[in-house]
């Protein structure tokens, strides 16, 4: 492969700066006292602390999922991680004017303006810095329609009934090792509730930023769309460039009641480590949605370009009849990055339908695995799944793997799986160059064409970010 191809896919990580801000950081290590401390700092009601402790005790009995995922990393010392770190100034604030200017600057630098006047209309943001939410925009506008959009901590204080009802209803605290750890120590996150029949008028967005060294980020997002409601939610992530690995173990739960629709889009760009694989984020995330009522629909769209290791499987439980689950994914690995990602579609409802489109791009010495499960239970008459799983290789030191698991227990259902692997060849690049395009534009075009079906599902604001991330330009509207 030509040197220029390598250099293009090896673009510098632009978000690796550190904000120098005084933080309220607790000592490293984890025990029940640490959990009590986190809960106390957040002023949580007793049910929350009890839930955390149950999760912690369960976690102690669980084993890290080292054996089945196609990823390799040294053992994590869970006593060497800081479980809570908050900028000192991040007290609950009444308005954006009270937010520490250093924090506002940090987000400005990341291209995220928290000032509502400057925001593009149509996107409300919850900004999470290390362990806490520092600002949520457009809260009042949304509240007029009964929509709750706030930090998780605030939701626990202001809407404990909703939190108690739905927390853990899709991802129980004992679901898996990282979900249990998150349940025990999660510090903040976003909470969304859209009432019956309300169509959320703007995109909701959370921007995650890890700043403190050795801090783990354990946020929790819970989105509930009541009957007939609609919400589109965006998630973005970056972290400073550091030499050691940092753990990000988040949990996202989505609940869509009858006729509701949730669209969840992620552009993940955590620091991936340097070319030798030093540093970078371990992104071990559990994301799952439940189509609880008839006709509900949940769509996951993800563009995964960062992190040293990605381990995540945004899934949908298709419980109601005529429910729809979708998963569109672009996962890019480069340098020494490893990704083991995919989805689970669990069909319980009659005529439930799911679509999986996964595009894996491997460059450098990256290793990319698609792991997907389609499960059709006996009750799910007439269920349908379509899976398309494509891998693209750039250079000859990278890897692409596909691990589909299909379990069908109903004879009236249909499951399709298509897979392909291609290599960006000298010939493809040469062909483009012979037509006058330089190497950079040629690769852009080829990679972009490859990812087209996924990008089409991103909201406009994010499509632009995804394009920047891959260093590619999106296809024009012609044709």
């Amino acid at each position, binding site marked *: 492969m030509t040197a220029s191809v390598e250099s293009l896919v090896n673009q510098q990580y632009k978000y690796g700066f550190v904000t120098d801000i005084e933080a309220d950081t607790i000592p490293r290590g984890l025990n029940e006292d640490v959990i009590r401390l986190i809960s106390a700092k957040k002023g949580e009601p007793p049910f929350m602390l009890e839930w955390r402790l149950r999760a912690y005790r369960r976690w102690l009995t669980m084993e890290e999922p080292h054996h089945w995922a196609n990823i390799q990393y040294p053992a994590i010392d869970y006593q060497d991680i800081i479980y809570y770190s908050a900028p000192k100034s991040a007290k609950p604030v009444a308005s954006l004017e009270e937010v520490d200017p250093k924090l506002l600057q940090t987000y400005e630098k990341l291209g995220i303006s928290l000032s509502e006047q400057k925001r593009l209309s149509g996107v409300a943001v919850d900004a999470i810095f290390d362990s806490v939410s520092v600002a949520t925009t457009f809260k009042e506008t949304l509240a007029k329609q009964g929509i709750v959009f706030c930090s998780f901590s605030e939701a626990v204080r202001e809407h404990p009934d909703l939190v108690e009802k739905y927390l853990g209803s899709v991802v129980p605290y004992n679901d898996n090792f990282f979900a249990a750890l998150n349940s025990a120590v999660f510090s903040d996150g976003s909470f969304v509730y859209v009432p019956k029949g309300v169509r959320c008028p703007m995109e909701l967005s959370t921007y995650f930023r890890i700043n403190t060294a050795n801090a783990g980020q354990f946020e929790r997002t819970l989105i509930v769309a009541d009957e007939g409601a609609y919400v589109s939610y965006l998630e973005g992530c970056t972290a400073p460039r550091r030499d050691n690995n940092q753990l990000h173990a988040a949990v996202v739960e989505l609940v869509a009641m009858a006729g509701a629709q949730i669209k969840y889009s992620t552009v993940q760009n955590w620091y991936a480590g340097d070319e030798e694989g030093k540093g970078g984020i371990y992104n071990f995330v559990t994301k799952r949605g439940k189509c609880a009522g008839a006709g509900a629909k949940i769509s996951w769209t993800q563009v995964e370009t960062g992190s040293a290791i990605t381990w995540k499987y945004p899934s949908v439980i298709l419980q109601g009849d005529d429910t729809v689950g979708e998963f569109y994914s672009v996962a890019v690995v480069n340098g020494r990055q490893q990704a083991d990602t995919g989805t689970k579609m669990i069909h319980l409802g009659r005529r439930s339908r799911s679509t999986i489109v996964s595009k894996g791009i491997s460059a450098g010495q990256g290793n990319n695995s698609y792991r997907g499960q389609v499960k059709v239970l006996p009750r799910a008459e007439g269920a349908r799944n379509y899976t398309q799983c494509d891998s693209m290789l750039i250079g000859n030191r990278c890897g692409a793997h596909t691990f589909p698991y299909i379990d069908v227990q109903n004879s009236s259902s249909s499951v399709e799986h298509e897979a392909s692997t291609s290599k960006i060849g*000298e010939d*493809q690049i040469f062909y*483009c160059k*012979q037509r*006058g395009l330089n190497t950079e534009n040629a690769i852009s*075009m080829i990679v972009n064409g490859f*990812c087209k079906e996924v990008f089409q599902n991103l909201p406009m604001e994010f499509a632009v970010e995804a394009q920047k991330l891959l260093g590619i330009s999106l296809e024009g509207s*012609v*044709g």
Partner: protein
Amino acid sequence: MLEIRNLHARAGETEILKGIDLTVRAGEVHAVMGPNGSGKSTLAQVLAGHPAFEVTEGSVLYDGRDLLDMDPEERAQAGLFLAFQYPVEIPGVTNAYFLRAALNEIRKARGQEEVDPIEFLELVDQKLKLVEWGPEVMSRQVNAGFSGGEKKRNEILQMAILEPRLAILDETDSGLDIDALRIVAEGVNRLRRPDNATIVVTHYQRLLNYIVPDFVHVLYDGQIVKSGGKELALELEAKGYEWLTGEAAPA
């Protein structure tokens, strides 16, 4: 326009071109013929700058510039076009997007304004007629799912849109049925102008019934062993290559 002097090139350790001399002037059509493995396609690829080949000796001047010193995209921007023997597929990218991007790169390099999508579609409209195609081909993905003949026709469409000064057609006739051959050849003929030139690389004389060359060159074992007028092609058709090469022609 093009002056090739003592051109030697190799792929890996194998020397393929062993001293080619060829001069092409504006307005001319040259046919390069020869048996399989003689180096015809290599010559086409080397002129376009394919990275698989290394030039070890010789020079190529293109409009007075050192062609061998130019990147493949610079050559394209300077008006050199290669119609590929095996056109490459680019899934997910439409013909319209691909060609507008290419055209704009070429226009930019020449200090011309880029064309917007509307202007582009108007321009394409005329060019489509040349290859007897409807506009729907512009929304198909570049060569993906095209038959062999369609791919070759798509090369000619691209040539029509990019309006090269020097077009090199590499075995454009292979895999074409007689109707497609006629369409492709007529397209090429209608693109002939006094200020551009064409090099037709082919194994068979068949294409030259439609695209009539001014000069015919026979390539054998990396060298031009004979040059002549269009009648040389007919002679080759009648006698095969062995009278020039002293070997049995491949079937």
